[in-house]
């Protein structure tokens, strides 16, 4: 593995999160669109997506979207300002700061719901 | 494989690329053969500047530059060469600017200039701002700019081709044989004219500013054929080599105000050159440094070096004007020049001597100015003789462009009226035989060990100060090493990138130029410029105001002499 620094990891993560989001997007659109074929079809699909595996996966997707969005803003700053490039490392740490700031409350809200729904409590 | 070109240039450094460009401007087909990739040549390591009397900062005239060059060369400089040089280098610098070279600028937009060793106004009154520069990477910018122009004009390059022979028959140059590193194949090149621009041979010494590749290949190839080398006793030791590696720290550091100090912090150059002090010519500064160390005023646990002090300069000056040397000091010595003085000692740097040429770069075969038709040389490999007994700082870069241009243009003009010569079917035979012999050698002697011994011997016996006794030892040592060289062993028998084979060949060249050097040193019984004989401490114009031509005939080293071209400036005592 090439021993790159923050920039390389920011880029790799941006790619991986992007691909993950795209995959989810395709499935998600088909899932939602299935409603066209009536309530039955829709419900049977939702039954699959409501099992614990996919609910946890959705958490991952939310994280991926959040990172991709924040790092995307970092990229825009780098592309259009001189200081964005100069402070790209600091910006990346800023991305992670904001990520935690948004993601942790989301987890606090969602994780108990998942636990409740799955254990049937 | 066989190739044909109108003009072949050997070497892709400053003089080679200049020669190639100006030859191409004449409308002939030019090819450049280099043992390196383009832009790897050692011109790129030149730092401080290129001297030309532009007069951008203060009043300056080419006559002053001419005088400085001659006086710097301790009157061994051919004055016609110095005159042409001082005039044409102005035009050459402007042409480099027009090619795009990013010189540093003055507030009025003109090329900035700085002070440099031995460059004075009004014939020696005070130091003058003459060196046009691009930070401390002027050579890098010259090399890049020239290569850019070669790309623009789409010149042919044979990269990583080691020239193994120049085919000369009856004083006519007919072609070149070269070894392709990538494949191990031998190539023959037919050419109407050949320009040799292959650089110096600093690797003969242990401590040198020169690249690993500067092994005097072409000097040795011609010397082997019985052709003479001129003024080989004059080899320059640059005062400020980063101790102990010998990496060059530009004289521009002193041009910007740097000061040399001994163990007591004394600015010792005041005693040796009261007028221009630290900006005295290199031979004088190098000797002063050696004397300080010898007299116990050296610095460090072994008192074996002195200090280059830049700490009194504004940090901004150092960062802006001397960024590269600051980095060298930091990386290789852990010294920050803005805070601490830098340890320095003289380092083998530049050959004033080399292949004798006319003012147009034509190679001379003897003391009667007999020419070798179609063979040219320029740059450090050549001896016009512009630098005489000691080259001034910045004059090497000027030399490259001025005499590279003259050689390239002359070669192209010659090629236009010449025919390609037929080469004998086995033109590459001798090269092949020698290469095969080295490749298949399996003797006991290690190339690396022999080279190290040679470098140590040259360092011990043919350095800044010389005596009969030391030089005699040097002659003996080189002869012994040559004998042992016949018994080397090479492990790599392969065809592809056989760099071990190449290094073994290069050691052979080094031994030959070293032989020419030590014999020349022993032969000249006077002190002049960079050649300081302690047993003959005075300059002797009566007997020795002449160029020496060393050559080898039937295995014996012998000498011829050539008068110095005098003129405007009478030889005088050389004080600063």
């Amino acid at each position, binding site marked *: 593995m*090439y*021993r*790159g*620094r*923050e*920039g*390389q990891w920011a*880029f790799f993560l941006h*790619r991986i999160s992007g691909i993950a989001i795209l995959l989810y997007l395709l499935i998600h659109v088909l899932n939602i669109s299935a409603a066209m074929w009536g309530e039955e079809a829709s419900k049977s699909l939702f039954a699959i997506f409501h099992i614990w595996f996919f609910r946890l996966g959705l958490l991952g997707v939310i994280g991926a979207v959040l990172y991709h969005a924040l790092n995307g803003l970092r990229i825009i700053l*780098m592309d*259009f300002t*001189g200081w964005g*490039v*100069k402070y*790209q490392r600091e910006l990346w740490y800023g991305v992670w700061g904001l990520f935690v700031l948004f993601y942790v409350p989301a987890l606090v809200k969602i994780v108990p719901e998942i636990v409740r729904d799955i254990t049937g409590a | 494989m066989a190739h044909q070109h109108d003009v072949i240039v050997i070497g892709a450094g400053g003089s080679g690329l200049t020669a190639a460009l100006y030859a191409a401007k004449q409308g002939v087909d030019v090819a450049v053969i280099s043992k390196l*990739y383009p*832009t*790897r*040549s*050692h011109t*790129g*390591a030149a730092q401080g500047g290129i001297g030309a009397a532009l007069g951008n900062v203060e009043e300056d005239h080419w006559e002053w530059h001419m005088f400085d060059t001659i006086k710097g060369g301790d009157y061994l400089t051919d004055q016609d060469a110095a005159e042409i040089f001082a005039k044409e280098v102005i035009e050459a610098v*402007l042409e480099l*600017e*027009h*090619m*795009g070279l*990013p*010189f540093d*600028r003055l*507030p*009025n*937009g*003109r090329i900035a200039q700085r002070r440099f060793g031995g460059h004075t106004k009004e014939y020696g009154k005070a130091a003058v701002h003459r060196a046009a520069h*691009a*930070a401390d*990477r002027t050579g890098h910018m010259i090399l*890049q700019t020239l290569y*850019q122009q070669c*790309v*623009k004009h789409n010149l042919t390059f044979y990269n990583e081709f080691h020239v193994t022979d120049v085919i000369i028959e009856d004083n006519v140059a007919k072609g070149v044989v070269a070894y392709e590193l990538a494949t191990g194949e031998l190539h023959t090149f037919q050419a109407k004219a050949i320009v040799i621009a292959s650089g110096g041979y600093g690797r003969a010494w242990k401590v040198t500013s020169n*690249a690993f*590749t500067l092994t005097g290949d072409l000097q040795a190839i011609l010397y082997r054929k019985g052709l003479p080398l001129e003024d080989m006793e004059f080899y320059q030791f640059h005062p400020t080599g980063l101790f102990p*590696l010998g*990496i060059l720290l530009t004289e521009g550091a002193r041009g910007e105000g740097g000061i040399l100090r001994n163990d007591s912090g004394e600015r010792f150059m005041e005693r040796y050159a009261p007028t221009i002090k630290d900006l005295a010519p290199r031979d004088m500064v190098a000797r002063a440094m050696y004397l300080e160390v010898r007299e116990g005023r050296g610095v460090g646990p072994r008192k074996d070096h002195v200090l280059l002090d830049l700490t009194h300069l504004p940090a901004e000056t150092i960062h802006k004007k001397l960024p590269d040397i600051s980095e*060298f000091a930091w*990386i*290789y010595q852990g010294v920050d020049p803005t805070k601490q003085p830098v340890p320095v000692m003289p380092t083998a740097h530049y050959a004033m001597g080399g292949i004798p040429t006319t003012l147009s770069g034509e190679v001379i075969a003897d003391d009667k100015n007999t020419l070798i038709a179609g063979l040219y040389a320029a740059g450090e490999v050549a001896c016009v003789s512009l630098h005489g007994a000691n080259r001034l700082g910045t004059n090497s870069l000027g030399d490259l462009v001025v005499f590279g241009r003259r050689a390239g243009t002359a070669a192209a003009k010659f090629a236009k009226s010449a025919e390609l010569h037929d080469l004998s079917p086995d033109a590459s035979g001798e090269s092949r035989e020698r290469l095969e012999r080295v490749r298949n050698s399996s003797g006991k002697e*290690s190339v*690396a*060990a022999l080279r190290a011994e040679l470098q140590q011997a040259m360092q011990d016996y043919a350095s800044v100060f010389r005596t009969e006794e030391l030089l005699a030892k040097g002659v003996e040592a080189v002869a012994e090493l040559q004998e042992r060289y016949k018994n080397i062993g*090479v*492990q*790599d028998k*392969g*065809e*592809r*990138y056989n*760099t*071990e084979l190449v290094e073994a060949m290069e050691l052979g060249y080094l031994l030959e130029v070293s032989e020419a050097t030590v014999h020349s040193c022993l032969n000249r019984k006077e002190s002049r410029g960079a050649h300081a004989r302690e047993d003959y401490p005075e300059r002797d114009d009566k007997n020795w105001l002449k160029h020496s031509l060393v050559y080898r005939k039937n295995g014996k080293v012998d000498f011829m002499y050539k008068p110095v071209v005098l003129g405007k400036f009478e030889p005088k005592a050389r004080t600063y």
Partner: protein
Amino acid sequence: MQVTLKVMRYDPNKAAKPGWVSYQVEAEPMDRVLDLLHKVKYFQDGTLAFRRSCGHGICGSDAMLINGKNQLACKALVKDLTKKAGDTITVEPLRGLPVKKDLVVDMDPFFDAYRAVKPYLINDEPPPDRERLQSPEDRARFDASTKCILCAACTTSCPVFWVNGSYIGPAAIVQAHRFIFDSRDRGARERFQALAASTGVWRCRTAYNCTEACPREIPVTQAIEEVKRAILYDKF
């Protein structure tokens, strides 16, 4: 102290694939990796092939992948690569360029990309008798990119370049930058042709490996971003 020098070696005439070979080398902390390579070549295995010339970071011959990072072998010191005696220093050829032998790679693709950006001053106006004028500020505008020694450390550190090599690469863009931002140059539009193509600047994904790898401390990514903006503002 002893260190282990682990070199990725390859001779296409002898083996189908590259492989690691380890050498025990006596090293000083201030030794360059280049010194270690020389020690191996001179005293252990003469067949080891690598390029070098100036030995102090000016000629750009000896860029290689040292301990997983592109560096010049003559500027990488043992003390910065090892913590204690016995540590291992790994040396590999540059990535993304065809390996010819051991640490020697084919530089031709790299120089082809260099040529594609027209790396020379373009200005057809007849030059004045004296120098063209340029203010110190205009000169400073492209100063960093004039430092480039064409060692290929940046281009071959780029994750985009590694796989299919069709990206023109950071070094060529830095060369373009050197001229586009030179107040004396008039050839920016010509250069934009190669730079705006699908293999040009837009392939840069700002991974910053080039900037980290540059032995001349050129802010390479910044130069690339400036070229992107120059093209953008030229079109809109």
